[in-house]
């Protein structure tokens, strides 16, 4: 039996990479591979799902082929541990945010990103092959000298979104909506590369030009405290303090309630390795207006309206067009549902296993 063991710095149950890793373990085991997860840090919600990477060397020896699949997204001490293991190495590259976005707001995070880039440059040529969430990520890892690369999107199980939403929150949001006003939604960690300041600017223009009762909900935990504070200041400066809501981290049920009561999802991020929220919105029939940068066009495809610039007036006009043009809205929602099918685990799961198997054979 061939073994494919997954290594990652942090395993978290609410995290896209964490869920991807857990789903991949199930797929690998179902396909007949031996597979465990090794993480340096494991969050409480998935405690017991991972093992200690340092203990990997001490495990009982077997006669089976053994592969290491290293999920790479940040600089970590795990890189040196993985490099020291005597087994063929493969990467699953989830992208590292460009440090330039963080120097001003969170220098420590920027330093970790730079360190991650340095580690990636060292480990990519040593790996037998790499799979990447998107063509954007694949291009980065290929440019660093990885001998074989392929695209295999992050594993998403949209059945997880069919669980009940937070009823009280949904009721509150629907009552607010019934009273009038378009509901903008932006989902993702509050971080400078995600450019929530551009979303607030576009929302301000929208309120002035089209709908003075519109509301914006920004869902996502803060990573850079200075950036978070400046966003609050921006909203206050533009007279939007009562119209913009920062939720911080939300529960899964609260997230579902927000999607179920939103009119549009706006994503003006400049650096994404994939972008799960745009697909979540498509799943809920919420039209997407997004800035075409990094991996976003590859994820959105024709399932959302992609903009080539993000001037506040242009974004506001695009949102109004999507809201008021019923045929366009229906077209986007229908295309979005097809996009969700394209990325559903029923399709991407077998393709991922096939991709892995092919690359492992080519590398043997």
């Amino acid at each position, binding site marked *: 039996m061939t073994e494919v063991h997954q290594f990652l710095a942090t395993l978290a149950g609410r995290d896209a990479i964490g869920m991807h890793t857990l789903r991949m373990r199930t797929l690998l085991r179902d396909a007949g591979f031996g597979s465990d997860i090794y993480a340096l840090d494991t969050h409480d919600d998935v405690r017991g799902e991972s093992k200690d990477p340092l203990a990997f060397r001490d495990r009982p020896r077997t006669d089976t082929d053994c592969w290491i699949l290293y999920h790479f997204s940040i600089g970590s001490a795990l890189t040196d541990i993985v490099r020291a293991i005597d087994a063929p190495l493969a990467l699953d590259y989830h992208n590292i945010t460009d440090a330039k976005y963080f120097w001003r707001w969170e220098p420590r995070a920027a330093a970790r990103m730079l360190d991650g880039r340095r580690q990636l440059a060292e480990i990519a040529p040593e790996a037998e092959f790499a799979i990447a969430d998107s063509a954007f990520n694949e291009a980065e890892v290929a440019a660093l000298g990885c001998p074989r690369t392929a695209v295999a999107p992050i594993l998403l199980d949209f059945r997880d979104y069919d669980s009940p939403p937070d009823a009280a929150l949904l009721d509150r949001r629907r009552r607010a909506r019934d009273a009038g006003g378009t509901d903008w939604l932006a989902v993702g960690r509050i971080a400078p590369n995600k450019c929530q300041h551009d979303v607030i600017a576009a929302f301000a223009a929208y309120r002035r030009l089209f709908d003075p009762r519109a509301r914006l909900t920004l869902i996502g935990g803060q990573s850079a405290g200075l950036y978070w504070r400046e966003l609050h200041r921006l909203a206050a400066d533009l007279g939007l303090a009562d119209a913009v809501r920062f939720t911080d981290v939300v529960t899964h049920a609260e997230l579902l309630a927000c999607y179920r009561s939103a009119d549009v999802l706006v994503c003006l991020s400049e650096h994404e390795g994939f972008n799960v929220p745009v697909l979540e919105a498509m799943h809920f029939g919420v039209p997407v207006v997004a800035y075409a940068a990094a991996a976003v066009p*590859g994820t959105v495809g024709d399932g959302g309206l*992609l903009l080539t610039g993000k001037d506040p007036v242009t974004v506001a*006009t695009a949102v109004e*067009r999507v809201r008021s043009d019923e045929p366009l809205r229906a077209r986007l929602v229908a295309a979005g549902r097809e996009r969700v099918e394209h990325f559903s685990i029923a399709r991407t799961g077998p*393709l991922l296993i096939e991709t892995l198997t092919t690359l492992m054979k080519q590398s043997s």
Partner: protein
Amino acid sequence: MVNDGPATPLPYADVRAEIEADATRAENGDSNAQYLERIRTATDRFTLRTAASDDIRAALALLEEQTDVHASAPVDSRNRGISAAKVVVRKTVFFAMNHLAEQMRALGWAAASVGEAAAERIEKLEARVAALESQLNAPDGDAPGDQPAS
């Protein structure tokens, strides 16, 4: 293998062109011009600024931006109790934090002044070197000291 490469060209080009035209019309409406300008001014402070390795003025601008030190830490939390606790802690230590922030601001401005002075001197030296180079490269008749007295 999954092909999720970006669609080229981007879809809905016709819609995007109409949106651009509508946006230009909305932009030109007199009643909103002042507020739209205010939005752009307010978001200008978020503009990503990076300095090329030989651009001392850009590096200086970045330094000056960082001298804006704040003593008040964010207190936001989805948990109201934690947020309230942060407010209490912030108020409790404000006198110390503010004292520190004032010194950091002063240090920042002093560093920026050094940078400003260094940039001035470097630019003057660069201009002088450039002038000397051009004189050296000029034909013999134009060499320094060969200029006829007027």
